[in-house]
């Protein structure tokens, strides 16, 4: 299969995602410039982390107008798997491909650390290879990862099982102590109703090799390989 990793001006984890998909997971991957209009025949799309357009207005606010986003939206509408990591998640929110918005971390400061994240749903293309309730150790590195959705919307998201990742203790118990940014309902990642578009704040691509401290993130990319293989079979 082939991953497309979108490069926005200011993306800084584009190569990391590319490297994890191609060198670690071993699939084809291609970097796609944001001014391009097509996804080069990719089977899955990654919107990587970083500071697209400097995050100067709001995170992800300007990137959603990039030409490539038309292709990403069309791809998502056709049911194609799309993963937004960190800044990519923020872009998906601004673009309306996922519900809700991001606010500044509750303690204001940028947080960079390894956090335990529980997999809530395994019926998305990016968690298909996970065990139910599996706890992954993944790095976060963001200043605005405080997920917000208006009350009614939040209820819908929960009711529709759209929360895919939640911050928990290493043993998998949610609690305020384990929420690094004030995110509502300890949400670390969500999907759309159709479940093919997933966004999360932690960085699975940075936790895909042993020397880097965790290999737990590899399963997120491996999942989509598995999910696509299942579809084509």
């Amino acid at each position, binding site marked *: 299969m082939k991953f497309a990793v979108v490069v926005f001006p200011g993306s800084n984890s584009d190569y990391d995602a590319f490297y994890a998909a191609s060198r670690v997971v071993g699939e084809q991957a291609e970097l796609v410039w944001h001014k391009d209009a097509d996804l080069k025949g990719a089977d899955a799309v990654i919107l990587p982390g970083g500071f697209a357009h400097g995050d100067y*207005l*709001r995170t992800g*606010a*300007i990137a959603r*107008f990039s030409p490539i986003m038309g292709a990403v939206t069309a791809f998502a509408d056709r049911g194609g798997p799309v993963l937004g990591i960190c800044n990519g998640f923020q872009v998906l*929110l*601004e673009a309306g491909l996922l519900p*809700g*918005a991001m*606010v*500044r*971390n*509750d*303690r*204001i400061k940028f947080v960079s650390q390894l956090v335990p994240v529980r997999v809530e749903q395994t019926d998305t293309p990016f968690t298909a290879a996970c065990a139910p309730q599996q706890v992954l150790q993944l790095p976060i590195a963001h200043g605005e990862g*405080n997920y*917000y*959705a*208006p*009350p009614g919307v939040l209820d819908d998201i929960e009711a529709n099982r759209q929360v895919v990742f939640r911050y928990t203790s290493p043993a998998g118990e949610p609690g305020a102590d384990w929420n690094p940014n*004030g995110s509502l309902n300890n949400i670390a990642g969500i999907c759309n109703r159709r479940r093919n578009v997933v966004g999360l704040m932690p960085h699975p691509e940075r936790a895909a090799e042993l020397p880097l401290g965790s290999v737990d993130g590899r399963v997120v990319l491996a999942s989509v390989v598995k999910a696509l293989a299942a579809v084509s079979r």
Partner: protein
Amino acid sequence: MKARVYVTLKPSVFDPQGSVVAGALQSLGYADVKDVRQGKFFEVELADADPATAKQRVTEMADKLLANPVIESYRVEVLQ
């Protein structure tokens, strides 16, 4: 022609920056500070346009780009 767009977080959205600032003010001795909310504004300079057109155009910009309707509300003010 200048216009200003004031963007504020909706009241239901927690404002981390405002609350940190409130705490800091209190610890500086301003015990009478009950609450602080932080917002931002954009001063947009437009090539000549009459005030009505300017207002309409800038409102459009706010709608499309400057504010995120999920969490923010905005107000437009034309200066001259």
